[in-house]
C-alpha cells in the first residue's frame, strides 16, 4: 500500500513458541516483515498479540523457534540483545514515561547513555523530534504536567530518538481519552509515510485500513488470518475473523 516498502526482510520469525508457566501463549508463529512494512496486529485480548511483539525486542523471551531482527538472531547472547534493543523502538499502552525526569530528559536518556551522544547533540535532536510531534513547548515540563495524548507523543519521540529501524506499538491509543486518540494516530501516520518499519497492535481499524500493508489476526496464540487490509476487512476467510470484525466495528 505504501510505496516505500521493499522486499528485504527485516524481521524473520520461525515457529515462535512461548509459555507462561503451563499456558501456551504463542503456538508457533512463522512470519516475515519487510523493511518499511507496516503491519497491524489485532485480535481479542489474551490472544498473544502483545506477547508476540514483546518477543521482538526481548521484553519476553521466546522458548522455541527463531527470531532474527535485522540480521541478528535473538538468543541468549547478551550483545545481540543490547544491539537489537537499540534497533527496535517501542511505544507502550501506558506510555511508561519516566515520571522523575522532564520530557526532554526522557528523550535524551537513551541517546546519551546508550548511543554515547553528547548532551548538546542529544538535546538538539530531542527538540527537533518534539517539534515533529508538535509539542516542542512541553520539553521542560514533567510528564505528569501534560495530557495523555502529549505523553504518548513524548513516548514516541523517546523511542525515535534512538534512531531505530523498527518501531513496535503496543496498543498505543488504548489508554487515551477519545479526543486524544487522533493526535497520536496523526503522528503515527506521519511516521508510516516516512518509511519506518512498524508493527502496531491496535483496535483502531480505521488506522489499519488506511496505513497498514498487512493486517494480522491473532487468536489463541496463532495467526488465524493475515491479508492486505482491503481483503481482510471486506472479505475475511475465517469464521473467527468475521466474528471479530463484526464485533469491533459494531461499537
Amino acid at each position, binding site marked *: 500500500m505504501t510505496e516505500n516498502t521493499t522486499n528485504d526482510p527485516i524481521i*524473520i520469525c*520461525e515457529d515462535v513458541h512461548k509459555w507462561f508457566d503451563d499456558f501456551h501463549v504463542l503456538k508457533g508463529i512463522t512470519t*516475515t516483515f519487510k523493511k518499511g512494512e507496516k503491519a497491524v496486529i489485532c485480535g481479542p485480548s489474551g490472544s498473544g498479540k502483545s506477547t508476540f511483539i514483546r518477543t521482538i525486542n526481548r521484553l519476553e523471551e521466546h522458548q522455541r523457534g*527463531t527470531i*532474527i531482527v535485522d540480521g541478528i*538472531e535473538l538468543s*541468549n*547472547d*547478551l550483545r545481540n540483545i543490547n544491539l537489537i534493543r537499540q534497533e527496535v523502538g517501542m511505544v507502550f499502552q501506558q506510555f511508561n514515561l519516566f515520571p522523575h525526569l522532564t520530557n526532554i530528559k526522557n528523550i535524551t536518556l537513551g541517546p546519551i547513555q546508550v548511543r554515547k551522544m553528547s548532551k548538546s547533540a542529544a538535546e538538539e535532536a530531542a527538540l527537533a523530534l518534539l517539534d515533529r510531534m508538535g509539542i516542542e513547548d512541553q520539553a521542560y515540563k514533567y510528564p505528569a504536567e501534560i495530557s495523555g495524548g502529549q505523553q504518548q507523543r513524548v513516548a514516541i519521540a523517546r523511542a525515535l530518538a534512538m534512531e531505530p529501524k523498527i518501531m513496535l506499538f503496543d496498543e498505543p491509543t488504548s489508554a487515551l481519552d477519545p479526543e486524544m486518540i487522533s493526535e497520536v494516530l496523526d503522528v503515527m501516520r506521519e511516521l508510516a509515510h516516512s518509511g519506518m518499519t512498524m508493527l502496531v497492535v491496535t483496535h483502531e481499524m480505521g488506522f489499519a485500513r488506511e496505513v497498514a500493508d498487512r493486517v494480522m489476526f491473532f487468536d489463541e496464540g496463532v495467526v488465524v488470518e493475515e491479508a492486505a487490509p482491503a481483503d481482510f476487512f471486506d472479505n475475511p476467510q475465517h469464521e473467527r475473523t468475521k466474528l471479530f470484525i463484526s464485533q469491533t466495528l459494531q461499537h
Partner: protein
Amino acid sequence: MHHASNTMAQNSTNIPFYRDIRFLKVFFQILFLIGLILLAGFLYSNMLHGLRRQNLPLDLSFLSSEAGFGISEGIDYDPADSYLKAFWVGVVNTVKISIIGIIFATVFGFIFGIARLSSNWLIRNIAAVYVEIFRNIPLLLQIFFWAALTRALPMVTNSITISDSIVLNVRGIYLPTLERTPEFNTWLSYLFAGIILAIIVVFVLAAFRHFGRLSEVHHTDRPSFISDIIFGTKWAAAPTFLIVAIAGLFLTSEPPFVVNRPELQGFNYVGGMNFTPEFSALLIGLTVYTSAFIAEVVRSGIQAVVKGQREAARAVGLKESQVLRLIVIPQSIPIIVPPLTSQYLNLAKNSSLGTAIGYPELLHIGHTMMNQTGQSIPIFGMIMASYLIMSLTTSAFMNWYNYRITRIGRSS
C-alpha cells in the same frame, strides 16, 4: 526466505560463553557462592586457631554442669541448677517482660494515638508532645533514667505508699492483687448458672420476637431466627449474666476475692505483687518508648481510611459515632496490625537492653554464662536462635494474617 534465515542464524548459534546470558547467570552465582564459602572457610579456620589458642574446644557438655551463679528474679531456680536451666530462666524473663510490656504499650499507644486525632486542641497537642519527646530520645537513655529513679526511691522504712495499696521503695514497686477465697468456687457456680440463664432468656426473647412478628411481616422478607437470636443476645444476655453474677457476690457467705495488699513485715513488704526495680525501670522504659511508636501507627492507620469512606458513611446518614465504629475502625484494623506487630517485635528485641541495668533476661544470663565458661560461640548461637524463633514465628503469623486480609480485600 528459508535460506536467508539459515545463513543469518549461523553466526549466532555458537555464542561465545562470555556473552551467553544463561552461562553468565550461572557463572555469577557460582562466583558469588564461592566467595561466600571462602569467607566462611576463612572465618572457620580462624575460629579453630582462636579456640586452640584459648584452649577451649567447642563442646556443649557444659550446659548440663552446675551454673553456680544466682539469678535475682524469675522462675524457680537455684545456683546448683544446670546452665541450661539458667538459660531457660533468662528466656522466660524475656518473654515475661515482653508480654507485659506489649499489653501496657498497646493500651497507652491506643490512648495517645486516638488522643492525637481528638477534636480537643489541648488533648491533641499533649499527645503530640508525648509522642515526639519519647520517640526521639534513645530507649537506652530512657531506661537508664528510670533505673536511676527507681534506685533513688526511699529505703523500705520510708516507703512511699499510695492509698495504702501501692508501695514504692528501693526494693521495687508493690501492687495489690486479688486473691481467691474458699468461697470462690461457690461463686463460680453462680457464674455458670448466670450463663445458662442468659442463654435461656435469649432464646425465649428471640422466640417471642420471632413468632410475634411472623403474623405482621410479609412472608418473603421474614427475618431469620438467627438474626432474632443475635438481637436478643445484644439486649438480654449481658444484663442477665451480670445480675446473676452480682447477686452471687451477695449470696456467698464471704466475698470470693480479697484484696491482698502489700504490708510491712519486719524489714520488708510482703503480699501483693512485687516488681523489682530493674523490672519496673525496664517495663516503664519499654512501655513509654513503644507506646509513642504505637500511637503513630494507630493515628496513621485511622487517617489512612480515606476521607471518601467517611463522607460516604455520613451521606448514608450514619451518626458520627457510628461512622467511627462501623466504617473507620473496621477498615483501619487491617492497616494497623502489620506495623503494630513489628512494634511488638521491636519491644521484644529491645527488652535485651535490660542487660544494661541488670534485669536477668536472656542476653544478660547468656553473657554471664559466657564469662564463666568461655563458650561464647555456642552460647551466642543459643541467644540468636532464641530471638530468631520469637521473630520468625511472629513474622510467619504476620504473613498468614496479611495473606488472609488481602484475600478478603480482593473478594469484596
